[in-house]
């Protein structure tokens, strides 16, 4: 039974969302004007006329690849990630866990179109943040923006980046699963995306971003996506506290085939995530694809073997977790390393993340589904490994790492990691304090005991 007070609070996200719509509608007309792309083909159902003669010219192959990659990265979040996480949760919380990723996809898709993309990639303000000039995608048309991708429509780049903005907060949910109020979750997500992700994304990837200017290498989002979500997850686990009965009651994953399916779809979609980051379908996309697949397989085997030696038996959850750890670790390096380097980066990730997950109990926080253990640790290892294994022989646009005669790069990578960790950890704590203070973070004991599916959503996963 909700007190009037709490139900009031519950509507914060509602209001927030309406605010979005309002805001959006406000600049409706001018925006509609701003949509004008290059003239389209004579019939909607007819193929596209060759884009206007003046360069930069759109390449259909590159565009096809980036659009497909965008769809693949969307599939990583839904259903990929929510299956991976949902299967590990308990049956009474399965839907609420899965729904979190799904709702994040919806919230951020709207946030990104309205102000997120503008903050992240809009005209630079002092290397810190983008201006709101591109609010509601005004000015973000279908002609290429050579700053980011010269052979595909600007909106294609925006879409591809959107999917990154979506999955990052979704990864965090693994840390606070099974105990947070849905309303607080919605508000936290919107704030975190706006005040943590968007600026960080600007720093690392936007033209003029100050971290980018440091020369740090992050091909597909090791720092922006994985370290940030992993560290945010750690902060959440610490602030939100343990689930009731944690350590005492058994908390079995309720559906491991679901988790295995999720891991597979993450692997599948990650080709879009990494190879898509080449923003074209050519040599770089191909070598990235090779690196991604090799590291993932090596990491899964490494985790399996570590478990086999240490536990006596390999497990399906272990192999799946190892694969995800490998995907995380290779992300920043994928465009800069060859197959053998990938093999070693992956093997390292599998072993390190396995150790991290095994040691978790010692620290006593409850990172329910190991968002930090896998994404935080794996992401940090990957960022540093990029400083070890990167090679200009693979990607002349990159840099050489320590093993290729350039120790300095490792330092730059470490610096980027440090910046990300500090900014995200502190920023997340602040947001948690705000949300917690205003509306509280956790459900009532009774609700948690009953399960979030019934208490937060009046639903049951299975009947």
């Amino acid at each position: 039974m909700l007190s009037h007070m709490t139900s009031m609070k519950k509507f914060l996200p509602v209001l927030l969302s309406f605010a979005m719509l309002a805001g959006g509608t406000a600049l409706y007309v001018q925006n509609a004007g701003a949509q004008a792309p290059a003239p389209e083909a004579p019939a909607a159902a007819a193929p596209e006329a060759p884009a206007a003669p003046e360069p930069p010219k759109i390449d259909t192959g590159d565009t096809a690849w980036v659009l497909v990659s965008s769809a693949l990265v969307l599939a990583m979040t839904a259903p990929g990630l929510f299956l991976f996480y949902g299967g590990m949760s308990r049956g009474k919380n399965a839907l609420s866990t899965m729904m979190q990723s799904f709702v994040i996809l919806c919230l951020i898709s709207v946030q990104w179109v309205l102000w997120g993309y503008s903050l992240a990639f809009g005209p630079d303000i002092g290397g810190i943040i983008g201006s709101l000039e591109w609010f509601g995608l005004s000015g973000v048309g279908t002609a290429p923006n050579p700053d980011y991708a010269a052979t595909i429509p600007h909106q294609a780049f925006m879409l591809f980046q959107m999917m990154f903005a979506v999955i990052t907060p979704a990864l965090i949910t693994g840390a606070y699963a099974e105990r947070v109020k849905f309303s607080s979750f919605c508000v936290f997500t919107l704030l975190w995306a706006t005040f943590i992700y968007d600026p960080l994304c600007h720093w690392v990837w936007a033209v003029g971003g100050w971290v980018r200017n440091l020369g740090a290498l992050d091909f597909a989002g090791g720092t922006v996506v994985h370290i940030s979500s992993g560290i945010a997850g750690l902060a959440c686990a610490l602030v939100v506290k343990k689930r009731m009965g944690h350590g005492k009651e058994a908390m079995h994953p309720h559906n491991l085939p679901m988790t295995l399916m999720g891991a597979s779809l993450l692997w599948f979609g990650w080709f879009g995530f990494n190879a898509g980051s080449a923003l074209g379908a050519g040599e770089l996309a191909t070598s990235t694809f090779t690196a991604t697949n090799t590291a993932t397989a090596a990491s899964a085997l490494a985790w399996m073997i570590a478990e086999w030696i240490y536990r006596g038996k390999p497990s399906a959850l272990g192999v799946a977790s190892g694969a995800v750890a490998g995907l995380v670790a290779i992300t920043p390096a994928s465009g800069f390393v060859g197959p053998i380097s990938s093999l070693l980066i992956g093997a390292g990730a599998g072993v390190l993340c396995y150790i991290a997950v095994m040691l978790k109990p010692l620290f006593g926080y409850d990172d329910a589904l190991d968002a930090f253990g896998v994404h935080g640790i794996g992401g940090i290892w990957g960022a540093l490994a990029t400083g070890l294994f990167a090679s200009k022989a693979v990607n002349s646009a990159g840099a050489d790492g320590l093993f290729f005669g350039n120790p300095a790069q490792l330092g730059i990578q470490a610096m980027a990691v440090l910046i990300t960790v500090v900014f995200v950890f502190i920023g997340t704590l602040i947001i948690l304090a705000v949300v917690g203070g205003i509306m509280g973070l956790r459900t009532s004991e009774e609700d948690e005991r009953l399960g979030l599916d019934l208490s937060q959503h009046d639903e049951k996963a299975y009947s």
Partner: protein
Amino acid sequence: MKMIEAIIKPFKLEEVKDGLLEIGVHGMTVTEVKGLGRQKGSKETYRGAEYKTDFVPKVKIEVLVADNMVARAVETISRHAKTGTVGDGKVIVSDLNSVVRIRTGETGDSAL
């Protein structure tokens, strides 16, 4: 008339059922249960966490039989359910006051 309740190993259900039908028992009710006893349970490990469970899957068979059938029924169940290894289970016999067959309203032995 008596109620026989047997707790057995799941994979023995078919055999026990057939045994009972042979000796002329026409019906039974079966429930999936978890048993705890001398038989050791299994271990599960998920990432860090290791769970030992003392419970093992069993099935419970409830059979109503006329008094003159009790001995044979108990013997039949025991014989077919037996593997000789720990965990074979128990057969319990108890009294009851009355039975009604809902469809016909028949009572007593004719309700079976």
